[in-house]
């Protein structure tokens, strides 16, 4: 049977648990936010570099300069 009674020490027991939840929660949140941020950054940059590469491949070839007409 669970006993959540901390008696006269409740003022010390519950802040210890609350602090642990806050600190571990902050570590989890910061870790996930950091991972999400940099993964998106890589995806964005890879998409941009992919677009740039595609643009280079698909770019129309420049017309060769026409040879100047020679007046006869």
């Amino acid at each position: 049977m669970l006993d959540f009674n901390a008696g006269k020490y409740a003022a010390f027991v519950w802040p210890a648990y609350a602090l642990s939840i806050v600190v571990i929660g902050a570590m989890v949140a910061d870790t996930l936010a950091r991972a999400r941020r940099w993964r998106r950054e890589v995806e964005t940059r890879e998409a941009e570099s992919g677009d740039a590469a595609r643009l280079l491949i698909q770019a129309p070839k420049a017309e060769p300069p026409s040879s100047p007409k020679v007046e006869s």
Partner: protein
Amino acid sequence: MIAALTNPARFMAFSRWAAPSLGVIAAILGAVGLWLDFAAPPDYQQGYTVHIMFIHVPASWMSLFVYACLAGASLMGLIFRTALADAAARAAAPLGAGFTFLALATGSLWGRPMWGTWWVWDARLTSVLVLFLFYLGYMALQAAIDDETRAARACAILALVGAINLPIVHFSVTWWNTLHQGSSVFRRDGPTMPATYLAPLLLLGLCYMAAFGSLWLVRIRAEVWRRRAGALAMRAAG
């Protein structure tokens, strides 16, 4: 195994399933450990403050274990010059600082009703405070140097210097006469506490360990992505 984990591509493949798996294991161990924690009767001496022990002691174990991981990764980074080792060391520091802060804070919350004081400058508490300062110093040094290679090398040297403090923390209760009690779990003659307290303590210790493993892997993944993003930005610029 080590060769697989020093290759970023293999590491990313491994950590992709290992990180969430360890997270699930941590959640299960935490749920069972907390159940046994609040099912345990109050201690005949400590009363209900024994509940603080179930979260204080695992945090203290982790403060040492994470620093050992940080120092090991730093040593590998210095010897083999692998970017993944530097990333592992860098990723461990904030987690270690968090666990060490918890060890100090929950210990203080236990000490006030049991010892009659929030803090005492005895060898164990002071050496753990020094450990916390090493974590903070590591992160501050990392942030202070722009060149990542130089920062990694300087931080690795600092981490190895700080590793001298690990045996001091561990043996402080036997080398000196401290207010902090000695080890009651990892002893040659076996644990001195009954199973009703040992079971939740070990389960929550394993929970913290699995949680650290999961978070560490995710943070190393984030470091790999951060470096990849930097490399892509450099390529796009030049």
